[in-house]
């Protein structure tokens, strides 16, 4: 970790003069609709389950924004879901598996592509085979759909989904607080604010990470291990970044369709945390980086202050 200077303060919340370090990723976005909001979200939540980190899950995914019925192709409530991975092949595999197992199976669902990118990932083009010869191809309005017969009617699925190579993964904020309740309140405020930013997701459970990591481990085969500098129980026995009153740290990890989306999400998160103030939320905001060695995208907190 680089040496930190703590000189900034907004509404009593200290802001470290440091930066979040992020890296390029591949991403796609899908619009999943359902007969009502509950079932649109159910399909989206299932599809983005166990997709917190590319370290162990193959992809990072979450609901980006809820889409009102008036803005979906079929006039039903929907969720925009984003999926991020480190390679095109892995993204293609993850998207296909997840849509096939979680959206195709969800009652009344339909799946539309919601991103125009440099390449296309197979979606309905592969899933159609579930129709066992009864599937129907439809092309109109410049779009290609597959209609797959299922037990409650038909599963409508866009043939392909767009892929972007401009996506960014690993934007982050570390929220340091006097206790767990305050840290959680700050994190929830940040996640709620970031949830309103289109094109940015927080893939961890509820958008929050308690097990922030550092690169590498003393154990062979482990690619990441606990971020001991921010673990309060190790304060004093390791080179800690925590002050005497910092007893809980939570991290918000942000993936964005573009670098601008990550920056906007971090700005929204910082604003929400600072508005909450140190009495109810975090007393300090920091960010995770590896001295600039991990990725080419750097988000300096001082540039993102409200």
């Amino acid at each position, binding site marked *: 970790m680089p040496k930190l200077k703590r000189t900034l303060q907004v509404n009593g919340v200290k802001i470290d003069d440091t930066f979040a370090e992020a890296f390029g990723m591949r991403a796609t976005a899908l619009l999943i609709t359902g007969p009502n909001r509950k079932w649109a979200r159910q399909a989206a939540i299932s599809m983005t389950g166990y997709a917190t980190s590319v370290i162990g899950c193959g992809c990072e995914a979450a609901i980006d924004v809820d889409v009102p019925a008036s803005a979906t192709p079929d006039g039903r409530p929907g969720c925009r879901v984003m999926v991020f991975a480190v390679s095109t092949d892995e993204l293609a595999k993850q998207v296909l598996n997840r849509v096939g197992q979680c959206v195709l199976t969800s009652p*009344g669902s339909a799946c539309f592509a919601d991103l125009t990118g440099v390449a296309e990932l197979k979606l309905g083009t592969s899933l159609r085979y579930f129709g066992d010869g009864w599937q129907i191809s439809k092309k109109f309005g410049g779009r290609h*759909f597959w209609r797959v017969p299922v037990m*409650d009617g038909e599963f409508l699925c866009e043939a392909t989904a767009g892929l972007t190579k401009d996506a960014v993964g690993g934007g982050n904020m570390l929220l340091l607080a006097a206790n767990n309740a305050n840290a959680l309140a700050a994190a929830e405020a940040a996640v709620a604010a970031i949830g309103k930013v289109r094109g940015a997701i927080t893939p961890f459970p509820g958008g929050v990470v308690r097990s922030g990591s550092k690169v590498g481990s003393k154990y062979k085969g482990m690619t990441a291990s606990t971020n001991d500098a921010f673990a309060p129980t190790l304060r004093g026995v390791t080179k800690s970044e925590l002050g005497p009153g910092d007893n809980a740290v939570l991290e918000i990890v942000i993936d964005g369709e573009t670098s601008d989306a990550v920056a906007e999400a971090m700005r929204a998160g910082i604003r929400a945390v600072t508005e909450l103030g140190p009495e109810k939320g975090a007393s300090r905001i920091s960010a995770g980086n590896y001295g600039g060695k991990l990725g080419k995208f750097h988000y300096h907190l001082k540039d993102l202050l409200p």
Partner: protein
Amino acid sequence: MKALTFTLVSEPPERLDLSPLTPERLAGKARRDIAKIPVGMSKRGSLVGDLFRVAGTDASNIVFEGGSGRFDRLAESMQGGSIRVVGSAGTQAGRAMRGGALTIEGDAGPHAASCMRGGRIEIQGDAGDRLGAPLAGELAGMNGGIVIVRGRAGASAADRMRRGLIAILKGAGDYPGSRMIAGTLVIAGGTGEMPGYLMRRGSILLDRAPKKLSPSFVECGAPDSVFATVIDRYLVREGILKRPLLGSSPKRYGGDNAVLGLGEILFPQ
């Protein structure tokens, strides 16, 4: 640049082959050369200059001021640009079109959009028989693009259609969608006998129950259909229809089981 305009001076004395008058064939040609293009189909052999007053220079935007039922093969094989006919057209308008837009403000004769592969044709009046259908000996009819007929269409519209979308807004004659291979045929205003006769695949979307259907179609109920909603919204958004055609749970018939049986006829409950 001003649109390249062909103003009809008098009713043509013979049938005309207007296939040479497309944007790509006229690109870079001087008006005096255009006037010498033969278009007459009889031994009379009329030239463009005998029938039309030619004005303008933009060959990518062609206008026929005045039309005739003797205007055959308009926009044949057109690949881009636009052709507008202020009047009617004869047979095979837009045949084998690959791109661009053809607008006919009057009626079109038989075989309009025959074997079309891309682009958009709008016929504001009626279309003749065999809209989008193949000529004798050809295996497939329309193979892509979009055709809108604001009036009626004759018999056997979309015969052997393979891809694309045809929308007929004031009714079609007998056997619409006959022998369809795939694609989408939309008919508002009712149809004649036996829609989808011997269709293999494809979708025929109607605004009402068909009067007489081939007995080799089977009823498939009326499950919820996201496709119906999506295409309804598309047709309204594109200005093709004013209101949704099918609704969210249209009634469905599958067929024609005398052949492959993977086609469908949908209409609102």
